[in-house]
């Protein structure tokens, strides 16, 4: 494989979990809830997926375990940040620390002999995968990979501004009180959005463990969840730019490994930093006005009027 094909291949592989995780996080942030816990839920999903697959010998059973674990973790986050109105950033970061500790310890207890698990094998799509260079990179993914991309596109379309869902979510994130007075179920939508983040983050984690490395290692996600949150910021809370940011982040990560083959000798640190640099540039408004939902991280309760 040429160095370029390898780069694209690696980029796509790394971008898929970012795509699906940030698609869910985008919906949630547009509704006004910031989940720093994407990272933790991803890691939890990856761990539960690996354990499930290892125990049953079936990757699909592993995926199911990942989804259940992701939903449970997200439900906890939703109770804290929507129902109890705790600080979203603090609870999110705490959840990440908890997830890292618990999965590392759990892996030590559970995977006593070898950490490889059964996973999803790539399925080459006929014809499409024969396209030179990008064919194998794009159209030789696992079922899980295709599923993630499909869900991403579905969410981007379903929650665009033109749909009723999208409009409701935008209003709830922009001005929860007004949305409530218009008859929208503010906290129910927000709760649902956090659960959605549970599903998408768990899918992302499961993709890492079951479709990518086929194993669980300590801190498997290694900041991918934070990248997904950064992608939403870099995409300025709009669907297609967010997805583009994910693709860029994936490529930037792949470049770490492929750079020597291109004869590029940038310090790795620069490449590791590049996604975050992009996010900073995007938020600081160098590329147009950055518009966060006005009600982001602001919990809603009816009688505490604004």
């Amino acid at each position, binding site marked *: 494989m040429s160095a370029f094909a390898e780069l694209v291949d690696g980029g796509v592989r790394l971008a898929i979990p970012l795509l699906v995780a940030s698609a869910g996080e985008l919906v949630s942030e547009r509704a006004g809830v910031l989940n720093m816990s994407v990272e933790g839920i991803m890691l939890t999903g990856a761990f539960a997926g690996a354990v499930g697959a290892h125990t049953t010998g079936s990757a699909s059973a592993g995926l199911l375990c990942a989804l259940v674990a992701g939903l449970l973790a997200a439900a906890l986050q939703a109770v804290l940040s929507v129902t109890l109105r705790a600080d979203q950033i603090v609870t999110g970061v705490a959840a990440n620390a908890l997830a890292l500790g618990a999965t590392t310890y759990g892996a030590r207890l559970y995977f006593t002999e070898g950490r490889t698990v059964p996973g999803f094998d790539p399925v080459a799509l006929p014809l499409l995968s024969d396209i030179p260079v990008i064919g194998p990179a794009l159209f030789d993914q696992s079922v899980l990979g295709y599923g993630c991309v499909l869900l991403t596109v579905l969410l981007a379309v379903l929650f665009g*501004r033109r749909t*009723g869902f999208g*409009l*409701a979510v*935008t*209003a709830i994130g*922009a*001005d929860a*009180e*007004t*949305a*409530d*007075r*218009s*008859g*929208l*179920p503010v906290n129910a939508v927000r709760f649902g959005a956090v659960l959605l983040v549970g599903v998408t983050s768990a899918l992302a984690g499961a993709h890492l463990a079951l479709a990518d490395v086929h194993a669980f290692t300590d801190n498997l996600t290694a900041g991918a969840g934070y990248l997904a949150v950064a992608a939403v910021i870099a995409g300025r809370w709009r669907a297609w730019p967010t997805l583009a940011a994910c693709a860029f982040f994936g490529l930037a990560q792949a470049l770490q490994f492929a750079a020597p083959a291109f004869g590029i000798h940038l310090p790795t640190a620069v490449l590791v930093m590049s996604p975050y640099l992009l996010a900073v540039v995007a938020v600081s408004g160098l590329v147009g006005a950055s*518009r966060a939902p*006005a009600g982001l991280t602001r919990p809603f309760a*009816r*009688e*505490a*009027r*604004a």
Partner: protein
Amino acid sequence: MEPALELTGVGKTFGEVRALDAVDLTVRAGEVHCVLGENGAGKSTLCNLVFGSAALDEGEMRLYGAPYRPRRPAEALRLGVAMVHQHFSLVPELTVGENLLLAERARLRPPDLTGRVKAIEEEYGLAVDLAAPVAGLPVGERQSVEIVKCLLRDPRLLLLDEPTAVLGPAEVRALLATCRRVAETGRAVVLVTHKLGEVERAGDAATVLRGGKVAGSGPLAGFSRDELVRLMVGRELADLDPLLAAGLDATEAPAPRTPRETAGEPVARLRGLRLRSDHGPDVLDGVDLELRAGEIVGVAGVEGNGQSELVAVLSGALSADEGVFELDGVDLTRAAPAVRTAAGLGVIPEDRHHEGCVTGMSVAENLFLGRLREFRRFGLLDRKAMRAGAARAVAEHGIRASGPDAPLHTLSGGNQQKVVVARELALDPLRLLIAAQPTRGLDIGAVDAVLTRVRDAAARGAAVLVVSSELAELLTLCDRVMVAYRGRLLGPVAPDAPGARDEIGKLMLGAAT
């Protein structure tokens, strides 16, 4: 026939504040029922209980005979109750059409919306531009959108919480006509207002609240105007400023203020102020004005002729493209707000809720936000002194709050306004006071108090610029009245000149002097 809305023994307590106490209210179908009362009397709380934004502590409500206890606005809306809130409730990021769709998400599609909005336009004469972003709309148009949003739902009961406070005279007339039309179709309207003139023009019955209790209630035919005022503020009409009589009925010309014999030395100078607009003509098209010490100058005009922008430029919220603004010989055209304040410029902004205060902070913090230096002791804030200072201001201005530490958002709308007014009037030295719609949203007792204070400020040597859509207010308060027309100031008109009112009316339409 059973009443549209019936409240018996309704009570509501916020912490230590008894907002409503044993309130009985009966609103009949086909009538406009006015709810009156001082700032903080409990009018908004009453509306919120009926709309499900707040839960009642005791008592009982019935809607068209059926027991009614909405737990959230969605439930009230489903049962045919719609409300226009005291503070705007539209999502500014969305367009008008999107805001309207929000409420109708499940039932309407954009093409149907256009049809329904057309039908409402024909029936009520309320036109809205569906494609316009809400953020750029003038207040009058926003209010129309709010009302169309309510009418789209075809409500059986329409609650309007001070809908006219932000409107100009023509818009008020249109709104009152809409109220009448809604009532004539057999529905019920609850209209909260401070203006007795509006009550008389549109109301069938009235309920007066005082300190959370019902002070009086019944068909309007049973009340004289004096009686209503007494019930509202506990004072006789005759004790109040002559201006108030004007506020009660805009057609009665009040006795103009006797102009000062000798105007003081010039304090502020505006020369050639220009503010360009991205689309269309300049918003400010060369404004020249000189303000003298002790002089009160008014700016009248139809909304949207540059008055709001003039205040924004003088306060530093917008920056002028050309021209000079000097205060005591110091050029403040591009000065930071803190420099303006230090130079003795006090500004009461038009949109006090959004620009004038921080609703999450306490009354004391809001009062002294710009003067924290005075309360510093050993580098720390002397909270005790702040609280004491705030308590004094609260008492002096009759601000109804549970205490100086109460967060501003727990105050009633009118009391929030009073906090901003109190802060700006307390500036020392106060050289130039700019007051935009200073009496908006205040009860008639508070209007009286604010006008007295503005006159006092002038008597102590400050120059005062008042921008108001209440012509009567300008005529009694001011020494001369300018008229804003397409970004320029026309006039002056002397308020005591015969036919001043007609003269101003002509200038508002752009007739040359």
